[in-house]
């Protein structure tokens, strides 16, 4: 039987890699501490909530009615009044400088017009950030409509809609984005470090020593991948703990399932790293190639922009990115608490991508040796 011998050889290589990581405290710090710090920092950053939008108000009427309108605007909690004045030019300047995102202009004679049933106000919105602008405009219109409804005759809606948001009742965007950051960090650490570690051996010349050893290509690849898989799993455990205990992201699913899925996710991630290492001669090349993988991953995986809104062709490309699938899995486990019965297609996709990428890496290793 050759299997035990192969296992022993892989074991030796794993031991060597782990020793190398341990003897390089700077690297160990980068691998283990950096992801946690990043999660804390980015966990606070990744909020798409639109609240406390800076607003500038121009009140040219200075009546009880205009004050009531502005009070309604302020009390909503959606807007923070960052400046007020009686001249419209000030509102223009505030929007130009970016000091305010919306400006509400109440013209003179507002109170009289309102009493006559033809009140009119102007809402200026800075559209530079279309997402914030769209949502802020919606809030503003809703507040003004409510104010108007309070003053006019009540209009009965033809259809009453009761809406409820599931999985994330408060619509806190952080709950959705923090699991995404986890997926990102695990990929970042596992892929990049793997690719650089292998190329480094090639640069120093120690890869030749490994290749003349009895290790076969598949054993070499596995021996290189396993230590970083371990690092990746430890990272995942650490950042998940931070996400749950620090950010209080609801965790409704099974921890075991998350660990298993993470293991599956590490296969294509490490495979990518190894594949990059076989096509790069220098660490710089490996680093740049990793970048070419990371950027599309960041933008097309659904981490920041929903995949379903992309053009059809890009939706297909997104399916080739491992993180696309893992994001669905990790968000599903965290927020929806769903299990393998619904996640198996994504899991299979990850496995398939993993087998292809890993297989390609092994083949290329064989050819080079």
């Amino acid at each position, binding site marked *: 039987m050759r299997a035990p011998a192969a296992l022993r050889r892989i074991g030796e290589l794993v031991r060597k890699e782990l020793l190398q990581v341990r003897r390089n405290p700077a690297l160990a710090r980068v691998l283990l501490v950096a992801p946690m710090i990043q999660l804390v920092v980015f966990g606070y950053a990744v909020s798409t909530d639109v609240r406390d939008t800076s607003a500038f108000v121009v009140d040219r009427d200075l009546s009880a009615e205009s004050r009531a309108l502005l009070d309604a605007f302020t009390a909503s909690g959606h807007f923070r009044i960052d400046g007020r004045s009686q001249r419209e030019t000030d509102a223009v300047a505030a929007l130009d400088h970016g000091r305010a995102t919306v400006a509400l202009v109440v013209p003179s004679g507002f109170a009289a017009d309102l009493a006559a049933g033809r009140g009119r106000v102007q*809402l200026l919105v800075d559209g530079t950030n279309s997402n914030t602008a769209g949502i802020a405009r919606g809030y503003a219109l809703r507040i003004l409509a409510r104010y108007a409804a309070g003053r006019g005759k009540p209009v009965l809606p033809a259809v009453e809609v009761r809406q409820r948001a599931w999985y994330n009742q408060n619509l806190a965007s952080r709950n959705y984005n923090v699991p995404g950051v986890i997926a990102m960090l695990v990929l970042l650490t596992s892929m990049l470090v793997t690719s650089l570690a292998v190329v480094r051996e090639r640069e120093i010349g120690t890869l030749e020593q490994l290749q003349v050893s009895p290790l076969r290509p598949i054993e070499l690849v596995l021996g290189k991948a396993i230590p970083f898989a371990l690092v990746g799993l430890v990272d995942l455990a650490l950042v998940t703990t931070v996400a749950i205990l620090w950010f209080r992201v609801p965790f409704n699913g099974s921890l075991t399932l998350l660990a298993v899925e993470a293991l599956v996710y590490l296969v294509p991630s490490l495979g990518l790293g190894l594949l990059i290492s076989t096509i790069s001669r220098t660490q710089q090349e490996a680093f740049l190639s990793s*970048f070419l993988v990371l950027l599309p991953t960041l933008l097309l995986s659904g981490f920041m922009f929903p995949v379903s809104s992309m053009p059809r062709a890009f939706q297909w490309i997104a399916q080739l990115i491992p993180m696309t699938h893992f994001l669905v899995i990790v968000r599903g486990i965290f927020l929806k608490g769903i299990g393998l019965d619904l996640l198996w297609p994504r899991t299979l996709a990850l496995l398939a991508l993993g087998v292809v990428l890993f297989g390609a890496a092994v083949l290329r290793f064989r050819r080079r040796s």
Partner: protein
Amino acid sequence: MRPRRLWAIARKEAIQLRRDSRSLIIAFAMPVLLLVLFGYAITFDVRNVRTAVLDQDLSKQSRAFVDAFRASGYFTVVDALAGPDQVAPALDAGRAQIVLVIPPDFSRRLGTPRPPRVQAVIDGSDANTATLIEGYLQGTVAEVTRRLAAGGPVHSAGDGGAGSNPAAPPLTVDVRVWFNEELDSTNAIVPGLVAVIMMIIAALLTSLTLAREWERGTMEQLASTPVGRLEVVLGKLLPYLAIGLVDTAVSTALGVFLFGVPFRGNPLLLMVLSFFFLVGALGLGMFISATVRSQLLASQVALIATLLPAFLLSGFMFDIAVMPLPLRLLTYLIPARYFLVVTRGIFLKGVGVEVLALQGGLMVLFAAIGLALAARNFKKEIAA
């Protein structure tokens, strides 16, 4: 500092770069490729919301109600559910983003003082998308209400004698969106993307340049020449600066001619501010490279310091104003933050120096500090 020595270092670096085809491709092709790909692919807009309908009434009116959603252009009805027990699975599996539950008495109560109660269950996990869906939902329902009030069954008087004619709203809101009138997300994304991409490319290109010399042993050779540390740092920076300026110009042209993003400001001002921004971002990469001697570590640090911060902390995607205070302070260390204001300001708002002076000043400051730190840390290495 002698110009001749500075020039010699710059030439050496340029020759090295010219012979490194992969770095060259990255430097010139990547920004263009990224901008084209992502300019087309990414959008904040939410369209084709996957909608499942549980119609318990199955009347002409309920079908008309669902049709109004179809016709809105925002909702795509993907599924008709047979029973209440199918609501949860449809959302769990992600087949639907919103489920409309129409009660059995929908048509009976339509137009009565007790209007039918439709339930809308939204998948809230993606809060941003969910907020947008909520907005579409309310808009569509308001439209249905308006149409029913106009032509459909007139609803009878409620309490207080309202209704004989649907009251005109006493308040008209005159909304004007400035700078990006259609709220087109391409106009918001492309100028931002220029800033983010240039930040990443700049730091990426320089982060390995000093560490590489150190690892290959050529640092000793460099140290034995009469060049000073500032000359080395500046000399190595010049070729990348030239590349960066070309990249910015090309990306801007692409944004305007390919994506039709309005360019309302002064192109010269954009180039001048890009110059300072690039010096800062390149200096940051240089600083990392001078501080960390191994390429492996330098690349990790450069990544941590630039890639994710450029995307997440610059205000490109996530609004800085809603971040907690410590994080808001941290964003001041990200040069992309300033440049983003500059690109969006010059592209969309067409503002000039009077508005962007602060951002420009901060970028100059950043560049000066970055270069000084890089030069200082570089000296240590020669001494070591």
